[in-house]
């Protein structure tokens, strides 16, 4: 008896890994108009990209009742966000529904810092009133109320708080010292009070996400300092022209961090070479208040006093994109979600906003074809981005009049200063003047 079995030959394509038969001739000689066609497509893609660019998703709930001062995202989950306000309240938000989960009257004065613990279950808030509170993310089941689990107090005010990336300790910056705490103890484990002979307040502390014992901070004396919690010593400090408002370590490049400066610029530094920044990120027309790295480490977002959010690519000095809305005031805090898709901003007018990190990206599940088409479009734009027309379309952003004017003004000022310097160098007989690199000007001195 002959049994017929199901069979298939190796020649025809049955599973996706098989090679596909090309039903067209790929020889370039048969496609004389390939470039023209693709260029046209690229122009269309660039236009489409701008057409679909609607970055703002919406506000989070009804916001706070006062200016948002700080915010923090969980390091474990994408959902929760905690924000602190100038009226001393701390709010917990659910990002998927963009609603407020709870509002806690945590402090009596400005909340200066909030941070999630490593496990993502609890978070800390610190304030100008000199208190640190530890809270649970989920309300007490009986009372439906958030009670603080633990409280610490110092005579003075806290300026910043950050949590260790591995263990349970956390660091605070107060007007008197940088301190390292653990939840088990009522007193700090480590205290860095005399910092290079300067008693100026440290305003920001940030733990290193990879080299866990490293701690970086910005101080009111325009300095950026590094601390080693392992040996309990400070490492080095560099003093810039102006004060830095925020500092964030690059999660993918352990030696680099970005600094949001008062001089309208953001700087990236290599911690091994603190005498000059690795790159200057220009564009803001007012002080940069906050910075947040994309978890991919390839770009970061900055929020500024000029009421805009800018997204910088690590490799480029000018912003990739700029977000603004009519009602958004000075941006005090920005966060980049850990799936690198969204940006959260908290601003002076008490609202928190959710933005798309890539303005024209379509949210939700895409069909394979759609995804492929989108990828093709974006690669086309990327390929032809140097061509004038595409560049023009791709880079065009509609800006508020004020910012446009200020940008123009800044450029005029810069040109003028350059001209003046050029003249100085040109007509200088004694050789007192010379051209100085832009990056060289940033750091005033290095202290060790």
């Amino acid at each position, binding site marked *: 008896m002959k049994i017929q079995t199901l069979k298939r030959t190796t020649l025809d394509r049955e599973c996706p890994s098989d090679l596909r038969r090309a039903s067209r001739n790929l020889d370039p000689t048969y496609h004389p108009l390939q470039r023209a066609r693709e260029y046209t497509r690229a122009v269309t893609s660039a236009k489409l990209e701008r057409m679909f660019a609607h970055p703002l998703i919406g506000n989070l709930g009804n916001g706070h009742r006062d200016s948002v001062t700080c915010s923090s995202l969980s390091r474990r989950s994408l959902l929760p966000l905690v924000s602190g306000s100038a009226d001393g309240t701390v709010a917990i938000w659910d990002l998927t529904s963009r609603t407020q989960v709870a509002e806690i009257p945590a402090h009596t004065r400005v909340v200066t810092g909030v941070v999630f613990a490593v496990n993502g279950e609890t978070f800390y808030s610190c304030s100008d009133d000199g208190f640190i509170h530890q809270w649970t993310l989920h309300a007490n089941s009986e009372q439906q109320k958030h009670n603080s689990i633990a409280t610490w107090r110092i005579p003075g005010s806290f300026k910043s708080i950050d949590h260790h990336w591995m263990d349970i300790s956390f660091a605070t910056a107060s007007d008197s010292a940088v301190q390292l705490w653990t939840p088990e103890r009522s007193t700090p484990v480590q205290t860095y009070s005399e910092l290079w002979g300067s008693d100026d307040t440290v305003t920001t502390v940030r733990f290193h996400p990879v080299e866990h014992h490293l701690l970086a901070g910005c101080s009111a004396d325009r300095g950026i300092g590094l601390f080693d919690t392992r040996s309990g*010593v400070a*490492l*080095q400090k560099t003093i810039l022209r102006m004060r830095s408002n925020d500092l964030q370590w690059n999660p*993918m490049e352990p030696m680099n961090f970005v600094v949001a400066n008062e001089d309208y610029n953001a700087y990236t530094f290599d911690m091994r070479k603190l005498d000059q920044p690795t790159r200057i990120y220009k564009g803001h027309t007012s002080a940069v208040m906050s910075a947040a790295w994309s978890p991919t*480490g390839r770009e970061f977002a900055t929020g500024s006093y000029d009421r805009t959010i800018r997204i910088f690519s690590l490799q480029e000095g000018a912003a990739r994109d700029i977000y603004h809305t009519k009602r958004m005031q000075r941006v005090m805090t920005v966060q980049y979600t850990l*799936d*690198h898709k969204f940006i959260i901003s908290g601003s002076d007018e008490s609202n928190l906003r959710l933005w798309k990190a890539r303005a024209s990206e379509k949210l939700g599940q895409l069909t394979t074809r759609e995804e492929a088409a989108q*990828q093709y479009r*974006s*690669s086309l734009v990327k390929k032809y981005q140097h061509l004038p027309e595409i560049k023009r379309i791709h880079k065009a952003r509609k800006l508020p009049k004020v910012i446009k004017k200020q940008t123009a003004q800044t450029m005029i000022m810069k040109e003028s200063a350059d001209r003046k310097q050029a003249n100085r160098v040109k007509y200088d007989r004694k050789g007192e003047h010379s051209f100085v690199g832009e990056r060289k000007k940033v750091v005033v001195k290095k202290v060790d």
Partner: protein
Amino acid sequence: MGRKQKKQPQIREDIPSDEDEEIDEDEAFNSDDERKYGMFFQKRDDSDDDDDEDSDSGSEDGSDLEDDDEEEGDGGQYMLDLLNNLDKTDNDEPKTDTHTITNYIKEDPFSSTVIKGTKLTLDALVDDIKDTSEFGAVQKKLKGMMGKSATSTPAARVITERAQRRVNYQQQSKEVSSWIEAVQENRQAETLDFRPHMEGANKITTERMIDSFVPTTDFEREMHEALKAAGQEDEAALIRAEEQAIDALGENEITLEEYKQRRGQLAKMRALMFYEEQKRHHINKIKSKKYRRIRKKQRERQKESEMEAGIAENPELERELQEKEEMERMKERMTLAHKNTSKWAKHILKRGKNVDLDTRKALSAQLRRGDDLLKKMKTSRNGDDSDDSDDDLVATAKKVLEDTESNDADGEEQKGLFKLAFMQRGLQRERERARQEARELLMELEENERLEHDDDEQRPRDDLKPEDKSSARKKKVASNAEMTDLLNDGAMIASTLQFGSTTATAVESSFSVDLGSSASEFTKVMKPSDTVGSQEASGPPAKRQKNEKGSVERHTPSHSTQEDNPWLPFEKKEKKEPSKKVKSNNVSVSVESAVTLIPEVRQEDVQPKNVAETDINKDSKQTGENNKKSITMLSQEELVRRAFATPGDAEEEFALEKKEFEEREDPDNKKRKRNENKKELTSSGWGSWTGKGAPPPQLPKNLPKKFQPPPKLPERQRQDAAKPRVILSERRVKRLADSCMIAEIPYPYKTREEYERAMAGGIGREWNVTNSFKDMTRPEILVRPGQVIQPISKRMKQSRAPAKF
């Protein structure tokens, strides 16, 4: 320090080093604490008497060392050195003091010289207490002190802390530097893939889901309980239960006889199967074509006989079979399946030759069928097909007609029974009747034409009863077989009949029909009236165009069939229609032309006056047709040539145009013209005119430069130089140049070549295979939706695997 070195020679001149040393020591002893003192002692032990210079140079060395260390930065050792050096520098300060003091002492003539020349030692110091009782203990202590090295002085806190910071910072920098490789790799990667790498373990499968299933809701729990109670909570339990049930039925318990019997049965079955298999295998192995042919025929015969038996048994079956066959045919025609235009066939064709054998066979079978059909059509057109198509019928009809005519001509030559008078009479009568019937039929057809109905075709064949002649007259449908019978038996006016769908006739009779002179009459009348029509009738009927009104004018001339039209796809319609009409086994015979002719005939009969008029009309019609004919007679080639004809001098015109264009576009043209003008600058003058027969005048060689004839500009080759039929504009299009060209090479590219290489070739699907398209359009970041991207991990820091070659 420099100053100090300048002073030193002076000191040397005045005081021996020994003295200096002594004083030095003394001062040190007085001023510094014990540890320092001890250190001095140690120093003195280590080095010889020329300490001053040594210490100086030592400090210098130390500073050098410090510098070196700063650069190298080797952790703890460096720190120790640093601290040592700090000590030394501290020591230096008091030393300089002592120098000044010694200088002072030396210069003072009244200074005490008590200790001059002697060495101050500990022994000397304790000399005074030599005789005391505690001396032994003191001496012991001192001895111990002399042997030991002293601990160094702690430096100032600020300094030590700074040093510590430096060391720590360097250490940290070094640690962080170990990430460089991973960072570089990340930066250079075109795509960062953060998706979790799914391994087999992580995939969700049905088994896994079943394994991990835990009843949670009430319903699930209830179900689980119930299943458990029934002993069916999982597959193993189910199998067990089944086995138990079988056991309970006693199925598993068999006696020895039963077992043997079953075994025997099985063995027999197996043997039979094996034999069958062997046989089949053997048969399949036979390669002889002849054998295959025989087998095939055998099979067919068998099938046929079976079919016949079936038909004999059940007459309904035949009809069914025929219908089925017809349906298949229809389907084939409708779907054009045999032409490979079906979705399936297209799909197969798209997949190319890589389809498996069975599919290919099916496809080729279809093609073969299509070919067969085509062949059939062709042969039927030629009229030598034995099939029961209407073409064939017409042919038979013609033949029969001819026969009857010839019979008519030599009707007296009949033999045998037909010679008998009564038979002759009978025949005559029959003929009369047939003629009568034909007349009636034609009249009826005339009526039918007015009524215009064509639903007769659909009338079932069962209604038709050959016996009922009166009813048969009304019916316009005849069976194939009957028709052929009829045609074989008698003669008919087949020449005037056309087989069509609109009007149909059924003629059923078992008697021979002889139209005799009336038929010839018809043809006679017809011929002058419409030559084209007669031509048509003689031509293949399949080519005739259908015409409901039957107007002769609309008939297309038949000569068009002489030449194939390349613009039309392969004579579709005309061929299909005749075969379509053989839908059922009813034959529909159109009698259009006959119908149209009859009224004309009648008209002529009734109104002989109008003949001339109609003739004129006909003539004019004919001429018109002839014109048409002459136009369409042109071959396709000629038509094409006429349609796309160009005037004869077009090429010259084009060449002229091209030349003009070239001149217009030539950037050097202006210059050349200017130069030509320049030539004229040298006007005629001395030596320009020469006499008759003299050589032509030559331009003087030493003319000023501006009067020199212009240098010949190199001829630039145009792009279309070698293409006489093309004009390629070489003008720069500013708009395009501005939008599609860039002033400088953009950043990541360094050279023009590099940039152009990057831009060459497309990234779309049209120009790439799927995989490279995917590669080229891959996004920079790949991440699962809703996934948290964690910071770089230690794993990334590990060195990469060696490259494979």
